[in-house]
Every structure is written in structure tokens, then in C-alpha cells.
């Protein structure tokens, strides 16, 4: 399975440019997730890779072969669609074997391949059913099965789980993760759900307005987001953003804002020298707040009990912020508590460019 490279990829619809200049490399056998809000160009990118949308400019290299002008069938790929796109008039076995039948593979081989894949997906009992006679989850698996029997070099997924209910989605996500471990192929997966992206991806590509905001492993994106958008997009509950000023007092750099002043570690001092005495945006993950004496005194406005964790809604200055705490000692709304934040868990962003500092 060769690596895939997108070079200077561009997509225009008439006068509107959806994607201007996209460059991305996907290593051999890597599970890449394209994630972003709707309209960010992730689906368009996937469909260009699939060959369902024409490429306005640039190349799609699979290994050293430029496939950007080829028909979908010449690109050696299989795809799972959001609405499953099963053939309504064919039963499950026929749906799964359609590509193989078109390729004129011999009948016994087809039957064997379909049976094997059906067995791994728990579909053996349904091979004679039409798609309309299946539940959403089963249809989803047939769509996967149809892609799997192809044994293509690259698998494309266009929001395959978004039509399922929450419980089934979790289940299918786990199955997908297992499947991707078993068959090491190039996988490109589009979703708007950051949890799916985090749990499935070897590499996550966060997109916005047709541009790549950041590409990296889930840990990289979570620990060191390249900009405010990625910081806000990855992680749940969402990161808190506050306005602050970088102030140096008695040799220590502080992020000082309405109602708080958080000392930043010395290690970051030299790096932040140029931003001293200027305003910045700071981002603090809800889980970075630790309850304890000597911290910031904050009112608890709302306490959302989720289970092992609770999310508190509080106020810092005039900004609403959320805090994630352990539920062992429940905190009720109306209480005042003190929370500390470690300086190395504070993310700083340039207020103009929104890039991480």
C-alpha cells in the first residue's frame, strides 16, 4: 500500500473556491481522519481523492502515480458513504459482491470472499435480505462489507457513523478501530465528530474554510494545538478561552486577566519575551482546574453530574467557564470553591492571528 500525497489541491465551484491549496501526506497504512465543522472542505477533499469530484488543480499522488485525472474505478479504492449508498434492489450478498462481479471474478471465489467478510461482520444470517429489511447498524455493516470484499489499497469513509444513534455509534466506532488494526491499509476518514477523530485516527487533520489548521497525532493536537481553532475543536468539554495580558512581576511572567493571575513557568519566559505587556488569549482545558486552597475563588453556577466526572459552570471575571472535576465529593451549585491552574497547562494564543504562542 503506497503512501498518498495531496499536492497543491484546489477545488473551484464556478467562481467560488472551496479549497485553495491543500498539501497533505499520508503514510502507508495510516489511518487519517479529516475533521472540521461543516463546510470546511473535508468531504470535498475526500470526494476528490475518490474521483467523484473533479480536481481543479494540483495532484493526488498514490505512490508515484498521479491519479487525479483517473476514473474512480482506476484508483484502487473502496468507499463507505454516510447514507450507506447500498443498492436497494440487491440483497446483501449481491451488494457486497457487485464490484467483484463487475470485475468478472469467478463465482466460487466471489462466494468465498463474501462469506468470509460477512462472517467477520456478523452478517451471515442476513445475506439474502434486501437493505430495506435491515436495521441502520446492519446496513452500516453491509456498507463496510462491500468495501472490505474489494480488498482495495485505500479505504475512504465519508461520515459513516453519523446516521447511527449514540449507542450504536460507539459500538461501530470500536469495531472500526479493531478492523483498522487487523487490516493495515490506507484509510481516510471524514467526520465532524472530534471524539471519532481522536479515537480512530493515527493522524488527525483539522480543517477550516478549506485550509488545514493542523495535522498530527491525537496527542499532539490535544497537548499542543497550533492555534485557537484547533484548541477549541479538539477536546470535550471545550477549552475555556479568556482575555489576558502578559505581565512580568518580580521576575515571573503572569497571565493576568479579570479576576485571575496565573504564573507561567520560567521555561516559557524567553519564548514569550516579545509578547510581554501585550494582550493575549489564554486557553485552559476544563480538566486543568484542580480544586484546592490558595487558588482562584470561583462561584459554582451550575453543576452537571455526568457520572465519574462532573462539569461545573463557573464565572471568572465576566466570562463563563467550565471546569471538569471528579464526582467523588459532589459540589453543588451556589457554593464557592477555590481552583488552581498549573502554568504549563495554560495555552496562549495571539489575539490577531490566533496562532499558539
Amino acid at each position, binding site marked *: 500500500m503506497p503512501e498518498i500525497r495531496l499536492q497543491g489541491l484546489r477545488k473551484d465551484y464556478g467562481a467560488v473556491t472551496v479549497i485553495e491549496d491543500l498539501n497533505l501526506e499520508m503514510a502507508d497504512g495510516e489511518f487519517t481522519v479529516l475533521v472540521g465543522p461543516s463546510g470546511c472542505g473535508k468531504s470535498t477533499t475526500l470526494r476528490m481523492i*475518490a*474521483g*467523484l469530484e473533479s480536481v481543479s488543480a494540483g495532484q493526488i499522488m498514490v505512490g508515484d502515480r498521479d491519479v487525479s485525472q483517473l*476514473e*474512480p*474505478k482506476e484508483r484502487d*479504492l*473502496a*468507499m463507505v*458513504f*454516510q*447514507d*450507506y*449508498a*447500498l*443498492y*436497494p*434492489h440487491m440483497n446483501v450478498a449481491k451488494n457486497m459482491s*457487485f*464490484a467483484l462481479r*463487475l*470485475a468478472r471474478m469467478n463465482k466460487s471465489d466471489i462466494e468465498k470472499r463474501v462469506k468470509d467478510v460477512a462472517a467477520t461482520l456478523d452478517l451471515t444470517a442476513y445475506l439474502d435480505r*434486501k437493505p*430495506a*429489511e*435491515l*436495521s441502520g447498524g*446492519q446496513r452500516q455493516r453491509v456498507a463496510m462489507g*462491500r468495501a472490505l470484499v*474489494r480488498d482495495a489499497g485505500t479505504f475512504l469513509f465519508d461520515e459513516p457513523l453519523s446516521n447511527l444513534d449514540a449507542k450504536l455509534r460507539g459500538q461501530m466506532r470500536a469495531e472500526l478501530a479493531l478492523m483498522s488494526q487487523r487490516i493495515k491499509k490506507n484509510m481516510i476518514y471524514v467526520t465532524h465528530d472530534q471524539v471519532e477523530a481522536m479515537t480512530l485516527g493515527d493522524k488527525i487533520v483539522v480543517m477550516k474554510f478549506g485550509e488545514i489548521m493542523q495535522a498530527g497525532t491525537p496527542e499532539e493536537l490535544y497537548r499542543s494545538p497550533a492555534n485557537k481553532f484547533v484548541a477549541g475543536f479538539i477536546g470535550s468539554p471545550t477549552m475555556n478561552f479568556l482575555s489576558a495580558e502578559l505581565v512580568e512581576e518580580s521576575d515571573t511572567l503572569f497571565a493576568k486577566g479579570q479576576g485571575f493571575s496565573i504564573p507561567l513557568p520560567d521555561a516559557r519566559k524567553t519564548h514569550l519575551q516579545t509578547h510581554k505587556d501585550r494582550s493575549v488569549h489564554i486557553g485552559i482545558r476544563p480538566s486543568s482546574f484542580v480544586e484546592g486552597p490558595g487558588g482562584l475563588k470561583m462561584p459554582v453556577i451550575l453543576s452537571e453530574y455526568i457520572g465519574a466526572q462532573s462539569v461545573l459552570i463557573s464565572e471568572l471575571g465576566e466570562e463563563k467557564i467550565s471546569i471538569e472535576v471528579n464526582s467523588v465529593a459532589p459540589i453543588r451549585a451556589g457554593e464557592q470553591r477555590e481552583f488552581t491552574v498549573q502554568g504549563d497547562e495554560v495555552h496562549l494564543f495571539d489575539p490577531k492571528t490566533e496562532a499558539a504562542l
Partner: protein
Amino acid sequence: MSIARANRLTPYLFLAPAGLVLAVALFYPILYMIYASFLDWNPSQRIGEADFVGIRNYTKLFSDNAFRESMGVTLKFAAVVVSIEMFLGVGLALLLDRNIRGMSVLRTLFILPMMIAPIVVGLMWRYMYHPTVGIFNKTLKSWGLDSIPWLSDGSWAFASIVIADVWQWTPFIFILSLAALQSLPKSAMEASRIDGASGWQQIIYIKLPLMMPVLIVTLLLRLIDAFKVLEVILVMTNGGPGLSTEILSIRINRTASEFRELGEAAAMSNLLLIVLLILTFAMFIYNKAQEARAARLRVVEEET
């Protein structure tokens, strides 16, 4: 009368006028016709004066060669025109189901023939088929070819009425097929492209099977219509030459007005009605079967 009861009756009250019109305009004539088909009835008599002859009109029909020939012409006409129209209509729809500049104008042009009154269509084609001044023979002549006896030779006349009908009714199948095509699930088409289907394979394995329910209903509708066709042929050939284009409705018309046999004409009409009823029932049963299938699938879906 309680309010609940009055409420239950309200829909029937609103339906009553339509029911009344239906009874007067549809059931009365049909019953009248069925009764008349058992009479030996001359147009100069009042219906009460006609003799009751039982099923003689019907038995006579089956031994009547002219009627049998007319039935044959009708069946042949319906089979030929509907086959050609289905082939062309579906073919055009498959061809024009794409986004090309000016396609909407083209589509409108295609459905124009359907909007012209049948009498006008008949006259138009009669002029075009005219042996000396018609456009077809004039064109043939200007190319140095022999003229064709469009409406004066038996087999050519049949071909001529087929051409006119195909011209007028192919658009009907075209628009219904196009509508069916455009409502097909787009992602299934894309999936088939990824699966490696060529344009032809897409048509044969995906598009046509998915269009089938619409195509079957369209086919039955056109068959029903083709059995009833009258005006265009009446104007063009009036059934001739000989009996070569005398479809059933022209035969019925002649039996009543020329041969003055109202009873026999009624019997023929009844036979035609039975043929049409069979076709209509076929369509009805097909629709019911589809609905039942859909309902069953819904139940399955809700259970799983």
C-alpha cells in the same frame, strides 16, 4: 344526532357531490351501454322499442372477421407503439439526465407534442403525409427518390399512424422516466462508480432496476391509452385503406354511425372496456403489491 356521529358523517357529506357526478356521468352511461349491448337497436328507435336479443351481439362479434381484424390491428398498434415509445422515451431520458447548458429548454421542446390537441396532430401529420404537397414526399423528391404512399398503402398507412403516435407520446414516457431517474439515490450511483461500473453497467444493473416500478406503471398507462386512441387515426386515415388502420374505436364509431347497429357497437365497447379493465386491474394490483411490500419493510425496520 350526536356531534361525534355528525363529525363522522362530514367527510361523506363533502364527497357526496362528486359521487353524484360520478354516478350520473360514469356509471349511468356504462350501465346504459351494458344494457344496450343486449338489444338489437337502430338509432331511429327509442331504446324502449328495441328488441332484446340476449348475447347475440356478442356471439356475432366473435364470428365477425372485420371485428377480429380490427381487434388484431388494435393489439398490434398498441404493442408496436408502446414498445417503440418505451425504448425511445427511456433511452432519451438516460441520455438527457445530465447537466448541460440549455438542457431545460431542450426538455421543454421534447414535451411540446404531448400538449397539442389530438385532432390537430392528426391534421398536421395528414398534411405532412400528403402524397404530392406533403413535406416528406417533397423532400424525397428533391433528393431524387421515389415518393412513398404514406396513407394510401395498407402497410405504409400502419407505419404512418405508428410514427405519428410515437412522435406524440414518446415525450410522456420521457418525462416520467426522467423524473424517476432524477429521484434515484445519488450516492448509490456514486458507489457504483467506485465499484467500477461503466456507464452502461450503471444503466443495466442500477438505473433500470431502480426505475422499474415507475416504468411498469408508465407502460400500463400507455397501453391503456393506446387501446383507446381515436382522433389522430380518425383524421389521418379514418381506418383505411381497407381495414389496415381500423383500430377498435374507429370500428365502434363506424358500427354505430355507418352501420346503424347501436347494440353491436355497445357490445364492442364493452369488450374494449373489459380489456382496459384488465390492464387497469393489473396496474392496481401491482401498486397494491408495492405498497404491501413497503408496509412490510417498514414493520421489519421498526422491529429491528
